[in-house]
């Protein structure tokens, strides 16, 4: 065996190294040094992120007999996720050092890094075995993270719901895989794709298998109707975990979803999964929005908002071309920044006052103008208001979807667009609570921690800059169009 193949897995190995270092630090550092563990982990991860950016990005490599692949696009999406994780880490420093968490803070970082490793595998996998391993590595530790506040009932309940549904979904997913295997005789993406393409007509079993596979990944992406765990888990989990779950996990799954649908099942696009996805997108966006309207708890609210955002992300897959891929990646990037800004504010407020319900945000602008401002930008960006990045990502995702060209897609985009109005409504509700409400704010003026502020500054800069500065999107389109 050629061990140099491991060099293709620079990112994965990097994450493992960071994981090991954090683990060792956690295990062997005496109590006194533990306090800086979050900082150390964050700095280590920052170094790793920087390393990933500066090392040459490979054009296209296969490793382990084609089970693993890496390319510019894959490195790019991993880097995007890295940036997201870095922000999550920065934002969680204060929480990790808080009284109840301090004793277990190391575990948070270790579990998080492991799930990240799993996501990398999901992204890079070109064989379903590796993919399943990645998927499970990415989801199982998350259950532990969700249950992190083990003394809080919500956290426990969320973990139970998460783990049970996750196992169920992975069983269904693997059942689907077994059908695929039975039909095609291989678990390699390329082989399956060739077998399907050679098969000509689409068998019912393949469709069923496809539905099973879609549901498995749809679960991670929280597509309706596989999303029902989302709200409860987002609400119950510690906010840092929620923010991680909502952006990184979702981003990775979305990319992996695209890879599987286009590379494995690309041949049956128009026969099978186009329409499945069509229905899922409509359901996801609409149901997510309808639920979000009524939410009073901000974390739950953001959960439903992220459900509907997932629907928009799927539009990029509908396009089934390079423009779509670029739009999807860009959307993930922007979504990471927007959502993390929102969660950053929620977290800062929660850390300072313990409040997460929207009613306590009333009049926040009077007490904490900067936080409210950041929150507002996040909401505008999520709603797709220019000149913030969310507008660009939405516009590009719609443009890319329409590039597919059928009338049906126009209808789909129209439905999505009408849904943006509903989503604008509930995003504005938050803005209204903070800016317009005349009530006196129950949250006193406070000064958020430096780490929180740093995180917010980064995300706000991203919200403002990512769209207007065109190089990000241009670069993404550049690299996706190569494949």
């Amino acid at each position, binding site marked *: 065996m050629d061990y140099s193949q491991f060099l293709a897995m620079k990112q994965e190995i990097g994450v493992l190294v960071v994981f090991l270092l954090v683990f060792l630090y956690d295990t062997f550092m005496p109590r006194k040094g533990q306090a800086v563990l979050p900082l150390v982990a964050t700095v280590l991860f920052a170094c790793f992120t920087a390393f990933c950016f500066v090392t040459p990005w490979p054009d296209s490599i296969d490793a382990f007999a084609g089970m693993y692949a890496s390319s510019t696009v894959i490195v790019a999406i991993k880097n995007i996720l890295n940036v997201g994780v870095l922000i999550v880490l920065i934002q969680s420093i204060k929480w990790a050092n808080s009284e109840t968490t301090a004793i277990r803070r190391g575990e948070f970082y270790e579990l998080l890094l492991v799930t990240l490793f799993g996501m990398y595998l999901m992204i890079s996998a070109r064989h379903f075995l590796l993919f399943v391993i990645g998927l499970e590595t990415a989801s199982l530790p998350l259950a532990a993270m969700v249950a992190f506040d083990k003394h809080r009932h919500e956290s426990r309940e969320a973990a139970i719901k998460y783990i049970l549904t996750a196992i169920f979904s992975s069983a269904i997913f693997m059942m689907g895989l077994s059908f695929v295997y039975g039909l095609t005789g291989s678990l390699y993406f390329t082989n399956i794709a060739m077998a399907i393409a050679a098969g000509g007509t689409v068998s019912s079993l393949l469709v069923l298998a496809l539905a099973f596979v879609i549901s498995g990944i749809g679960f991670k992406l929280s597509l309706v109707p596989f999303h029902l765990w989302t709200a409860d888990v987002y609400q119950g989990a510690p906010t840092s975990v929620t923010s991680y779950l909502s952006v990184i996990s979702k981003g990775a799954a979305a990319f992996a979803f695209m890879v599987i649908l286009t590379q494995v099942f690309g041949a049956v696009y128009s026969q099978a999964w186009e329409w499945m996805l069509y229905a899922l997108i409509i359901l996801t966006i609409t149901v997510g929005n309808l639920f979000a309207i009524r939410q009073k708890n901000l974390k739950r609210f953001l959960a439903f908002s992220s459900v509907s955002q997932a629907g928009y992300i799927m539009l990029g897959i509908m396009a089934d071309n390079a423009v779509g891929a670029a739009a999807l990646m860009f959307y993930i990037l922007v979504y990471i920044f927007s959502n993390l800004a929102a969660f950053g504010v929620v977290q800062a407020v929660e850390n300072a006052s313990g409040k997460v319900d929207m009613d306590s945000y009333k009049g926040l602008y009077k007490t904490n103008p900067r936080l409210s401002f950041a929150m507002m930008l996040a909401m*505008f960006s999520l709603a797709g208001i*220019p000149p913030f990045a969310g507008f660009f990502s939405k516009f590009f995702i*719609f443009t890319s979807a329409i*590039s597919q*060209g059928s009338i049906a897609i126009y209808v789909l985009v*129209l439905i999505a*667009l009408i849904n943006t109005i509903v989503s604008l409504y509930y995003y504005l509700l938050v*803005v209204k609570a903070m800016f317009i409400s005349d009530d006196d704010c129950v949250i006193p003026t406070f000064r958020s921690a430096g780490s929180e502020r740093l995180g917010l500054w980064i995300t706000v800069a991203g919200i403002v800059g990512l769209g207007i500065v065109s190089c990000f999107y*241009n670069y993404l389109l*550049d690299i996706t169009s190569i494949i």
Partner: protein
Amino acid sequence: MFSNILIYFVVIPVVMLGALALCRGMKAIRAVAVTGSLALLGLSIWVLCDYLEMRAAGNNAPMLFTGSWSWFAPLNINLAVGVDGISIAMLILSSVILLTGSFASWKINPLPKEFFLWLVLLSTGVFGFFISIDLFTMFMFYEVALIPMYLLIGVWGSGNKNYSAMKLTLMLMGGSAFLMLGLIGIYYHSAPEGTPLTWNILEIAQNSSIDMGWQYFLFPMTFVGFGVLGAMFPFHTWSPDGHASAPTAVSMLHAGVLMKLGGYGCFRVAIYLMPEAAAELAWIFLILTGISVVYGAFSACVQTDLKYINAYSSVSHCGLVLFAILMLNTTAMTGAVMQMLSHGLMTALFFALIGMIYGRTHTRDITKMGGLMQIMPYLAVCYVIAGMASLGLPGLSGFVAEMTIFVGSFEHADMFHRVFTIVACCSIVITAVYILRVVGKLLFGPVYDEHHRTLTDAEWWERTSTIALIVCVAAIGCFPNFFVDLIKFTFSPDIFAVLGMK
């Protein structure tokens, strides 16, 4: 990039935003607002002069001062700017109203800084929209202009402001949802086989190769999309509530400028790019806008809230703009632009005055006021002038615009157009009814509330604001040919021919 003068229409507001963010104290804020808007006004006049000079020198390009800088190159999105007479007219209108709006909100309270920040952000969108000739940037600026409305109404508004602000924002965004779909559709269907796709309006118009089947789909999308902002029946209901709740300067800018985005967009995108579909489908929208014109006027007759009256009047007048655009001939379209200018100025004047009156009497209900002419003669006289402009008194702007529209509309000899033209003409009578009703109840007659006797007349900043607007209204009314010449070039037959219009 910065050698193009048009860019500064966006740069100046952005600089203003920065300056406002750093400002401390009311004086500094006012200084920034007034200096900035004066600079914008100066700039637009400069552009106007240059434009006229270039046209006089025989420059026959459809757009002048064009510039295009690649932005999202893979998607062919450029930051493309260019202006013709219509855009320049709109730019001047916007800067005048921004300036007067700044004066009108001299004592805005609370949070003056935030107020001006949003106001300037809004105007960034407006200016950006008018200078853009790239569909993407146009749309972007369009939305930039819409969203600050929410906070401006929500925070500084009055009455049922939450509801109104939300309704306004959602309805306008609803319009822009259709619009976005239309624009993306145009992008994909406008380039002939083998040429790169483009967002550039001029190129699309020159290619003129949008398939007819697609036009049938895209024209209504874009027209309705912009039409919502142009208060087209039945999508106008955001307007009464929105205007009623908005603070003075916001009403001014919104009715004065923002609603013009609708009309301008309908022309610049829907009709300019898809003239064939426009010709085919105009009748549907003519019916709708025809209804708008009369319906708005009739509704205005029974309102008792000053702002509602004016909002419905705006529905009527803006309906006339769209109505005229749909007539698809030079004269009517010229009239439409004149009407945009005219309505923009006079309705801004109206809203400024209503705001000033409301600031004193704390009511906008005409049944609870009366005889203000005796108490605040200056404001009352201005109100009468605004009213006269609105009902189309010669010498003020409304007359010129309406007559141009009617003459243009009458060029269609078929029964359908005739009937609707005459219906639209009827609005001048109804307008007179509701304007005089207000004037009679509000300004004339005995003083209704004795407490009002202690109220004061206009302050100097209020005078500045109103006088500037009145001068503009009168200028258009007295020297219309200057503006017509400015506008007309765009509609001149050879340009129409280039664009494939009849």
